[in-house]
């Protein structure tokens, strides 16, 4: 899905706030409140799996995505998932927030839709799945990535679409986020690391000899690419 979450290569962004990480901590307290709430939603099955959670983040209000920070994004996803599960209503949260001093003009990040049918809380452990089928691509093989944006959750960033790269690693089978986020089961797929020349992704970007960008991509994102003549 195209969206504000897909940040890789977007032009025009500000300098890095390099001082903002000196002491990474859950501070202010509401960051920890959101963190604990998300943990509780996973434990209760409201957050059925990580892929559904990530897709809930991707669907929040785009301005809030940029301005409410990391835990603000998690809050938007928590509310989205709770409303979609029918556990809490938006009106209920609105009322409680107003009791605590929120304004009706405050922007709310959550954009609840419909909870996918077939979404069932699964194994919270590893997402690695050994597959009976052999991997289609070998280390060193050239591949081209898919051209079209998928309508739902996907882990192929826009900047790496319709791009040619080289397989540098194979990682066995893994739960396929594009299916899992939407309640279509684990649908495990082979996972590869693909190295792209940075100059091929962004021909006008800064010079850098041999610079590469490496991405972990699932087999359905890839098709064979003939060797260069």
């Amino acid at each position, binding site marked *: 899905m195209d969206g504000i979450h897909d940040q890789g290569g977007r032009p025009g*962004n500000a300098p890095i706030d390099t001082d903002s990480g000196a002491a990474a901590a859950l501070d202010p307290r509401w960051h920890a409140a959101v963190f604990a*709430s998300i943990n509780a939603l996973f434990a209760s099955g409201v957050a059925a799996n990580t892929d559904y959670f990530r897709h809930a983040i991707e669907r929040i209000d785009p301005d809030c995505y940029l301005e409410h920070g*990391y835990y603000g994004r998690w809050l938007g996803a928590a509310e989205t998932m709770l409303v979609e599960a029918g556990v809490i209503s938006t009106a209920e949260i609105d009322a409680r927030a107003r009791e605590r001093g929120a304004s009706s003009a405050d922007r709310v*990040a959550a954009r609840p839709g419909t909870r996918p049918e077939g979404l069932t809380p699964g194994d919270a452990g590893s997402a690695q799945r050994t597959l009976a089928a052999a991997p289609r691509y070998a280390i060193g093989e050239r591949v081209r990535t898919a051209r079209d944006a998928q309508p739902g959750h996907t882990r192929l*960033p826009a900047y790496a679409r319709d791009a040619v790269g080289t397989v540098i690693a194979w990682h066995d089978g893994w739960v396929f986020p594009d299916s899992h986020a939407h309640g279509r089961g684990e649908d495990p797929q082979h996972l590869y690391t693909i190295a792209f020349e940075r100059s091929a992704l962004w021909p006008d970007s800064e010079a850098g000899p041999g*610079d590469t960008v490496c991405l972990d991509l699932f087999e359905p994102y890839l098709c064979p690419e003939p060797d260069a003549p």
Partner: protein
Amino acid sequence: MTHDPDQEQDQQDDHAAEPAIRAEALESLLIEKGILDPAAVDEVIERYNERVGPMNGAQLVARAWVDEDFRALLLRDGTEAVNRFEFRGGQVDKLVVVENTPAVHNVVVCTLCSCYPWAVLGLPPKWYKDPAYRSRVVREPRAVLREFGTRLDDDVSVRVWDSSAEIRYMVLPERPPAWADLSEEQLASRVTRDSMIGVEVLA
């Protein structure tokens, strides 16, 4: 239009208050519904502010610098290397450790969300999760590194690892020559989080 810095600050503070109030409103509702344990908030603060952090990754790096067999294991199977340390409070599906050399410098990002090797580095710094870092480091890594005060020679290749699946990446930095005589413990105390993300070169 006049520009009033005080007013601008007020507006920023208002924006900051929006998710804060709503987060604690949601927390209270989840507690009432029996979904959230009231003690859980303090528990995550204790867990992530005190027990899980970059000291875990620094131990791996220091061991790799003094023990060639461990270094080989760390680079071949990072998950197994981590399991030998039995760090408390974090888990990782699969950890891949990438090695800086005189010819290659590695740097880690997650452009689609903010995936980060929590088990070995703890909480991610704010800048790692911000749009500025996520958008720019794949496209102009050398300019981004310069903003961190890191200048690479022109003949060093930069390899950016965009964590787009469940595999987590950590950088094994180069050991500064001046640290040749330090003990493993001393080395671990000097390895920084930013060097294991790849935005800093140790010196």
